[in-house]
């Protein structure tokens, strides 16, 4: 890596190891001092014409890098990106050989950055490239503008396969001195949706619930997933305004517990698809995509979730009447 580190853009699904890779990269570039991070609540006063804007943001920084979530600043993210890069460019570190080095700025969730902020990144990235390298991290590179992508080395991080998850779980089991019955780790891996973080967490949960493991021990799904599958089965049982009202209450319960609405919708689709005819599957997946899109544009998530449920009920009831009379 030495001197010519390019700007990097890491993208991939969650639980595939993007952050881990970034931290490892920083450690190898700068040595142990990259580990000594401090959490800071930084305040910026940005002069925006007639008024000054106060922005407060939590940053994680060491002597060599600064990490932050610019999307936390909401619509003011543009100012944060500009200010911090300029600030970093002003005080460049000098390394042991007396050469001027560079600092690394890690930006998380760039896909949630506003369009203006991404625009303002593009020339800044080139202009200050001598003193500051950016490491961008996001879930989907579709939402990062082309101009930013073409300035970075894009690194796709794929989710681990089930086999790889099994290997990791067995490694952990060995280190912790646990006895793993055969096929147990395989089942955890299957349920994890190819997210390593989730696999390890549910492994830990199982350990707390019951040890020694038995080969047919139930791997409890997340509470909210169980809840969603309850909703799905109650929708299948009856399609009526009254049932819709009940479902609405349950959806509210999920939202109150901070489960993101798009995740609820996806899970609900998954549960519904399990029990449908293929003809209906097409239709339902279409409406799921349709309502999820509206959900992004709209403000109140519950409206769209409820609309999806109502749509499903109407289609399903029509289907039942058609088939069984």
């Amino acid at each position, binding site marked *: 890596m030495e001197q010519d580190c390019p700007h990097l853009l890491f993208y991939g699904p969650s639980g595939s190891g993007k952050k881990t890779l970034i931290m490892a990269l920083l450690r190898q570039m700068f040595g142990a001092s990259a580990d000594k991070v401090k959490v800071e609540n930084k305040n910026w006063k940005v002069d925006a014409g007639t008024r000054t804007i106060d922005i407060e943001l939590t940053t994680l920084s060491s002597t060599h890098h600064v990490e932050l979530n610019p999307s936390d600043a909401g619509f003011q993210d543009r100012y944060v990106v500009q200010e911090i890069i300029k600030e970093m460019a002003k005080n460049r570190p000098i390394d042991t050989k007396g050469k001027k080095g560079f600092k690394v700025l890690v930006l998380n969730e760039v896909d949630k950055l506003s369009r203006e902020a991404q625009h303002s990144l593009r020339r800044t990235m080139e202009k200050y490239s001598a003193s500051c390298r950016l490491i961008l991290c996001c879930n989907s590179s579709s939402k990062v503008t082309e*101009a930013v992508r073409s300035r970075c080395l894009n690194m796709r991080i794929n989710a681990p396969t089930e086999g790889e998850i099994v290997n990791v779980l067995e490694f952990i089991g060995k280190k912790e001195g646990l006895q793993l019955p055969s096929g147990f780790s395989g089942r955890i891996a299957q349920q994890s949706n190819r997210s390593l973080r989730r696999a390890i967490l549910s492994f830990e949960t199982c350990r707390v619930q019951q040890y020694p493991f038995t080969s047919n021990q139930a791997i409890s799904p997340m509470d909210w997933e169980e809840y969603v599958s309850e909703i799905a089965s109650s929708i299948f049982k009856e399609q009526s305004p009254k049932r819709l009202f009940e479902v609405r209450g349950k959806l509210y319960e999920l939202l109150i517990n901070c489960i993101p609405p798009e995740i609820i919708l996806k899970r609900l689709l998954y549960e519904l698809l399990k029990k449908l005819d293929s003809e209906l599957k097409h239709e339902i997946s279409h409406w799921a995509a349709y309502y999820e899109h509206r959900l992004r544009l709209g403000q109140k998530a519950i409206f769209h979730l409820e609309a999806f449920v109502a749509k499903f009920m109407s289609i399903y009831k029509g289907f039942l009447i058609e088939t069984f009379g």
Partner: protein
Amino acid sequence: MAPVLQSSQPWVEKYRPRQVKDVAHQDEVVRVLTNTLETTNCPHMLFYGPPGTGKTTTALAIAHQLFGPELYKSRVLELNASDDRGINVVRTKIKNFAAVAVGSARHGGYPCPPYKIIILDEADSMTEDAQACLMPCGAPWRHTQKLQDSSSFVITSAGIIGMGMSLITGPIIEPLASRCAKFRFKPLTEEIMSSRILYISKEEGLNLDSEALSTLSAISQGDLRRAITYLQSAARLFGSSISSKDLISVSGVIPGDVVQALFSACRNGNFDMADKEVKNVIAEGYPVSQMLSQLYDVIVESDDISDEQKARICKKFAEADKCLVDGADEYLQLLDVASNIMRAISNMPQECSFGS
């Protein structure tokens, strides 16, 4: 800024042409601008075209060639989207800069004409108000004796993909566009790109075979900056000899067999299989927008799908693309597209017969 270590510089900056005549492939633009350099008669200019075709390069080069390194700082104001460019900046910063008249003494062999240059990079991301506010900086100022001929603008607007008309009605407001001499930057052709890439790889001591070269021009789609970035990334990862496979792996293009797998799953007509493929694509982290454009190519080129079916599928592609731009979930959109392809190929009705 402090001198930059050569090795730490991105190649895009390192090999940026320093003179107008070195800008590749934009013959008309270069001809007009060379003329401008000789006569030092500089109109307001608006550069537009797809990214990576040399707009910023040209603007910087012409400013440097007119004023030389010494006067550059005092005569040229460079503003880009990373600077705050609301209406206020136009009102204060630009006007103050333009209001100071300058003389025309030649300086160190450069023409140094008696006006200043303001480069507004990425002008399309300026607010409409700010653009409107720029207009008086153009015409009327020339007539007030106070500010006569003291400034000239170069506006480069990056990221507008489209032809002249869409530009004028698009991000750059019409009255501003009509005050400028417009220069269109064409996407670079394969030969031009190849020759530039070959030059760079020779300078950097890289070994590039002809297959890799054509792959590189294909995946970068006329964007030279992207091609150079890919080349540098590949050189860093795989050393001095680079094959076309290495280039594909750094470019983020989805391998053909992944696209084919999804397509044949759709062709098969089994929803669950397609669902599994879609989940796989998402888990592998391939960007769905990229997937859509590659899948689109596959479908348009396949012979055994009728025109009507293709039309049905393409309509869905357009919708999904819009939804993705709005930030919709990638999995659901791709699943919807896959389901539509399936329905179109097996001639299932688009509308559902159930429900209202």
